[in-house]
């Protein structure tokens, strides 16, 4: 199955893309997708600190690693948010 991955904020710079389609095995969960992306980041300049602080949303809802993905899902990788003012 295929899911669309969206990158925001600093992750967009790190992955060099706004979005991409990723092929996953049937029944794959959020953690399986993260493992694939994590392996890929070893080839780019990735600060572990940021990768560790990421949250995930599936179809615009915050999701845990065990959430099972489905064909066509929209999975967003969200760095710590910084809206408003300080």
């Amino acid at each position, binding site marked *: 199955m295929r899911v669309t991955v*969206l990158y*925001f*904020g*600093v992750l967009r*710079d790190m992955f060099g893309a706004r979005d991409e389609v990723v092929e996953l095995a049937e029944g794959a969960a959020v*953690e399986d997708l*993260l*493992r694939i992306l*994590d392996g890929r980041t070893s080839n780019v300049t990735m600060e*572990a600190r940021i*990768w*560790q*602080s*990421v*949250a*995930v*949303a599936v179809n*615009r*809802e*915050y999701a*845990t*690693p065990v959430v099972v993905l489905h064909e066509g899902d929209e999975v*967003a990788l*969200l*760095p*710590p*948010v*910084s*809206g*408003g*003012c*300080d």
Partner: protein
Amino acid sequence: MLIEIVDGPIAAEAIVAGMKAGSDGAVCVFDGIVRDNTRGRQTLYLDYEAYREMALEQMRRLAAEAVEKFGVRDVAVVHRLGRLMVGETSVLIVVASAHRGAAFDACRWLIDTLKKTVPIWKKEMFADGAVWADGEPFPEDIALPPRGTVQ
């Protein structure tokens, strides 16, 4: 409830005026504006971006939760995206209530919670380069548990 994400200036005065009703004894306004520095480093402007549909939905839920939790009458939450110059409003929160205590509490809770959970990010352009703002750590119920695969 007025919940919006906008790409142009936020008409703060008009929004505040529009929030007042006869049964209100207090209107508490939080007007978040772009400061001219971060930790002493001169800021030229900020670029805000959002996961727009999710941010709007999160803002709607926060507003509804504030009404429920604090018993205030009405809430407005408006966030602006794009390039903002020093002094411009990035976020406006207005809480109308019969009494001031609930209005203050709800307003404070709304901005604090928005800053931790609503998917909006800002990049700060300084005189000597641009950086994404650090952001606040996600609350425990949103953050992913630590994974052993990353050193």
